[in-house]
């Protein structure tokens, strides 16, 4: 019995959340039961992901291969739990649990009736299952299907808010994201036509041998994939959907969208670039230079846009655009330190941005106002919320002893190792700009006179969720340990593929 569960765990971590999501609507009237089922599923999910990651870590990098239906690789669909997959699985489950806990008993004000709240949980679980699937699958077409599942659930989460602005943002997001997935599908079509395989490993082996026959087609495939995933993960010039969508969604949804959803597409992009095309082809077509350049532009432009925003959630959303720039910059550095930095920064940004959005949502719900200037004196009335917010800000800026520092440090080392001084300067300037647009919030919240209004910290589950995320930020900053090792091993594995 136990061995049956452990050998089939790679498929269970994908399908159990999906199936639980589908049964939830049948008992949507009993809210307590729904919430209990969701939270226990998330906990079990975290345990399963942790078990798989520890197995991968103990095996010294030999991946766990799972063949669906018993059909071996080129014919059947293959799930591959390598270091990268295990790492992203941990990220997804670590963010999903606190967000589900935060949503407990807290959603009816923003979302509406009980059935709508259940639908919110359905979409949350679907999004999580699709994200884990993206990390584990080794099949190109599966990636497309899971990306579409994730996109539709994201749009559903954005439109869960009943005000018309949310529907408008969701429509904009839906159109642009579908545009992106059409490009991704086109890219997959080119890869299938060039190589004849949909399995990533086999496609790569074939690609290395035949790429000289049709370099234009490879270039086209690469640019299609870049545009597609670039739109979906809000790379700078095509980020237009992100601020609207993330600032109009309900609070837990904007936390999960900003913290996780955009990261899943980056992991997919990473897998396409490094395991299908390989680093030699990337260098051949100068893809790494494009990525570094796009990342640098995104860091500077996103930070400058964030400086001009007055609404709290919009400022955080533009800050996400800037941080996405860091991740793309690290992808283009093509060395172990840069990739490790990207992966670790991905985890730390997921923790930080979700805690920031949850804390910001709590403050907005308490004060009833969206502007930053309305937060005066909140810090003394809501010590835990603002404390978590402060920890998040310090982590995002990259102060030592917080998780953001480790990621930025590795990115800095990576850019110096590849001899790109400009990238190193941009990373530091980005930190300074980040301090410039986030520190004023702390000043307003702590050092300005408080309003007469009665403000209080949220209820217990929300407090636990906030403290879990903040603790994650600090623990990753002080003892990055096994997570950092998993990230660096994933980076080394990706760079071993020529």
């Amino acid at each position: 019995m136990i061995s049956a569960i452990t050998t089939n765990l790679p498929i269970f971590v994908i399908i159990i959340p999906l199936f639980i999501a589908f049964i939830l609507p049948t008992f949507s009237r009993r809210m307590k039961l729904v919430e209990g089922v969701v939270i226990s599923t998330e906990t079990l999910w975290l345990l399963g992901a942790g078990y798989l990651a520890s197995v991968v870590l103990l095996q010294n990098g030999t991946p766990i291969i799972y063949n669906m239906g018993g059909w071996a690789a080129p014919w059947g669909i293959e799930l591959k739990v390598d270091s990268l997959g295990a790492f992203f699985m941990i990220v997804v489950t670590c963010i999903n649990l606190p967000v589900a806990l935060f949503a407990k008993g807290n959603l009816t004000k923003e979302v509406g009736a009980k059935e709508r709240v259940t639908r919110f949980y359905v979409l949350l679980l679907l999004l999580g299952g699709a994200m884990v699937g993206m990390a584990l699958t080794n099949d190109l077409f599966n990636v497309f299907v899971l990306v579409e599942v994730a996109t539709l659930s994201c749009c559903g989460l954005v439109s869960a808010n009943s005000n018309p602005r949310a529907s408008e943002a969701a429509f904009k997001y839906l159109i642009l994201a579908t545009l992106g997935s059409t490009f991704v599908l086109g890219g997959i079509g080119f890869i299938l036509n060039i190589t004849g395989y949909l399995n990533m490993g086999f496609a790569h082996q074939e690609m290395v041998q035949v790429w000289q026959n049709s370099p234009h087609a490879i270039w086209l495939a690469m640019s299609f994939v870049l545009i597609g995933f670039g739109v979906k993960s809000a790379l700078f010039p095509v980020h237009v959907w992100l601020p609207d969508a993330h600032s109009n969604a309900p609070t837990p949804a904007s936390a999960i969208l900003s913290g996780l959803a955009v990261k899943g597409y980056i992991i997919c992009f990473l897998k396409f670039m490094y395991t299908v095309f390989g680093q030699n082809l990337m260098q051949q077509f100068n893809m790494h230079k494009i990525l570094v350049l796009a990342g640098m532009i995104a860091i500077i432009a996103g930070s400058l846009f964030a400086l001009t925003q007055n609404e709290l959630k919009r400022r955080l959303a533009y800050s996400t655009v800037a941080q996405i720039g860091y991740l793309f910059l690290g992808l283009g550095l093509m060395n172990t330190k840069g990739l490790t930095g990207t992966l670790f920064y991905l985890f730390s940004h997921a923790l930080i941005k979700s805690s920031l959005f949850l804390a910001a949502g709590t403050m907005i719900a308490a004060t009833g106002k969206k502007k930053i200037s309305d937060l005066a004196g909140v810090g003394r009335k809501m010590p835990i919320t603002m404390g978590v917010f402060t920890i998040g800000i310090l982590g995002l800026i990259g102060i030592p002893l917080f998780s953001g520092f480790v990621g930025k440090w590795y990115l800095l080392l990576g850019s110096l190792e590849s001899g790109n001084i400009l990238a190193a300067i941009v990373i530091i300037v980005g930190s300074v700009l980040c301090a410039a647009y986030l520190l004023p919030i702390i000043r307003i919240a702590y050092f300005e006179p408080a309003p007469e209004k009665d403000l209080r910290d949220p209820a217990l589950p929300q407090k636990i969720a906030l403290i879990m995320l903040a603790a994650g930020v600090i623990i990753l900053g002080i003892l990055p340990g096994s997570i950092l090792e998993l990230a660096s091993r994933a980076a080394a594995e990706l760079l071993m593929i020529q």
Partner: protein
Amino acid sequence: MRDFIFKRIAAIIIPFICIYGFYVILHGASAAGGSFAGGIILGLAAIVFSTIYGLKKGKKKFPEKVLFCIESYGTLFYGIIGMIGIINGAPFLANKLAGIDLGIPGTLTSGGLIGLLGLGVGIRVANTLLILFFTMEGADS
């Protein structure tokens, strides 16, 4: 559309549409076609019924509760069929490895579990199409 001719013709045709839909679903394993195509045909039969006999009668025939239950448990059905492989010590969604007798190639049961899966998926597709139709149709009132 409360025309006598429409209603008579629909009453004659709809059973045949349903039979054709089930035929396409069940032969998906051994011939062209399959659960998506067959499910669409089944769903269209239900949509034809509710356009001609009126939305009220259609909703009475296919109550919303039942539709939502099929929506949820149809997906679970897929998972349960997949679990047969795991129970028999083979991977998820295994067919022959799970000890299913496949019989003679080309016959109806030669797909093994695929036939059952197809039936579940087909009914789920028809159901989804119907839900979409009811949602969109009821939206402008």
